[in-house]
């Protein structure tokens, strides 16, 4: 079998196991689904309450903010569906499980990403539903560009999310316990992507654009598709279409760092 066929087969088996596990633990699955739903519902409710009291958010209405949120949610949900297991790397390093991936003849990162879990694309389905609703409501310009670029933007956003998680997970090869850092990064991501970044100070806008480019997950693409005047860094609106490139670039950097981490790894001693 060619390498590609092996990868495809492993990946197919991985999803088969995921689905079977979800079917087996139905009650657990339902509770987690409720969790996902309530998590996003409270986030949107909070946005609604703020905008009811403070109607002007740098020119963004609630429907546009919902669109902004749904774009982040799509990218984040795609990341959670495909790449969530990378977050377990620190745990695998601590308990020595990670050694297993080195002795198997398959790309280590691919093995990590195909470690069976109870993953089901429920969040992604919710995200697509919210995105459709928000699109109907916020009325972005829907043309050929929208149809071609939107999926690419979402994939790019997921890659940005994934790359930052991979960077943090790789730190575990040096520091072993990085759970705190992972939690902090997630909190900052969810809080800083919620509002248009133009309400933040210049320094924060620069960080969110160049250093931790979360703004490319939703703010820049949303600005372009909603035809808003971009006033965070006064860039051309078309930068919103760069998200896929930014995602690929982030992934390349993170993957290079991951390779360095793998070479550095000596085991924690067991």
């Amino acid at each position, binding site marked *: 079998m060619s390498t590609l066929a092996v990868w495809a087969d492993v990946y197919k088996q991985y999803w088969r196991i995921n689905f079977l596990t979800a079917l087996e633990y139905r009650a*657990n699955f339902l*509770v*987690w689904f*409720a*969790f996902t739903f*309530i*998590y996003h519902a*409270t986030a949107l*409710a*909070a946005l609604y*309450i*703020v905008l*009811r*009291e*403070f*109607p*002007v*958010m*740098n020119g963004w209405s609630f429907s546009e903010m919902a669109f902004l949120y749904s774009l982040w949610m799509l990218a984040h949900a795609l990341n959670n569906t495909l790449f969530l297991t990378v977050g377990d790397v620190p745990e695998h390093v601590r308990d020595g499980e990670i050694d297993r991936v080195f002795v198997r003849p398959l790309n280590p990162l691919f093995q990590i990403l195909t470690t069976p879990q109870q993953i089901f694309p429920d969040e992604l389905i919710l995200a697509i539903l919210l995105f459709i609703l928000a699109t109907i409501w916020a009325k972005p310009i829907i043309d050929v560009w929208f149809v071609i670029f939107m999926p690419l933007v979402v994939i790019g956003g997921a890659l940005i999310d994934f790359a930052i998680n991979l960077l943090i997970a790789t730190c575990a090869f040096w*520091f072993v*316990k*990085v*759970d*705190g*850092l992972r*939690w*902090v990064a997630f*909190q*900052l991501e969810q*809080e*800083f992507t919620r*509002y248009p970044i133009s*309400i*933040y*100070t210049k320094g*924060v806008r620069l960080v969110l654009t160049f250093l931790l480019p979360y703004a490319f997950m939703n703010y820049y693409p949303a600005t372009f598709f909603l035809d808003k005047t971009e006033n965070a860094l006064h860039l051309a609106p078309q930068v919103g279409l760069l998200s896929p490139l930014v995602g690929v670039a982030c992934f390349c950097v993170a993957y290079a760092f991951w390779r360095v981490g793998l070479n550095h790894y000596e085991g924690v001693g067991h």
Partner: protein
Amino acid sequence: MTAVRPYFEFAKVAFSREATYRFEVFTSIGSLLVRVYLFRMVWTALYFHNAGIRELTLAEAITYSTVALLMSLVMDIDQTRLLVSKLDDGSIAMDFMKPISVPLYFFSDGTGEVSFHALLIVPSLILALFIVHIQVPDPIVLCVFFLSFFLGYLVGLLMNFCLNCIAFWTLEIQAMQLIVTWITDLLGGEVIPLVFFPPLVQGFIYFLPFAAMYSTPVLIYVGVIGPDEYLRALLLQAVWIVVFGIGAVLMWRFGSRRVVVQGG
């Protein structure tokens, strides 16, 4: 006195255990400071673009968020979470054999943990003062605030204990706890002061236990709850303590009978 001694030791051990995770300490203070800065930016932008008279001024809103965030250092800790992990790996069986009160053991372990995190409030506050200006009320108001904060803390502690006890029946409660956490964050007024909620919702939201945890102490701090309402606010907190206290006793009594350790 000798009866108290072991529990004091449990608390001391938990305290030192928390102090060993130095990296975690830095990240939790760091993330708190970033969020203080975030809230300052958000409130400043919102008040700048939206003129009008509100229940809170900009300075009060920033004070509110900062105080709530500092409180979260303590409030976010689930003191009795040890119960769930011990049920999960079965080690709770050993604890039942020891000549101690098991729930008191969990509470003292949690108290040690919380004491350590309460100490973190001091450096966090000092560092936060470099980022934001917070208002300081009269000493009397401050005293009532601390009393209310303590009551709110007890509400949270007992509510979490009840939740943890559910694990006697289901073993898995992580998702349920996260759901309660998100709801508490929103309806407790940790993120958005409850005075900004739609009037219709405000009618009943103050009577929920979530408001008794965060909102009541912070609203006392910023002066929205005035001296003539103190008694009512504190009494409502006390009611929730009693309700969850009774719940905790009942759930422990019925739950702990169900412990069956599988294999080992």
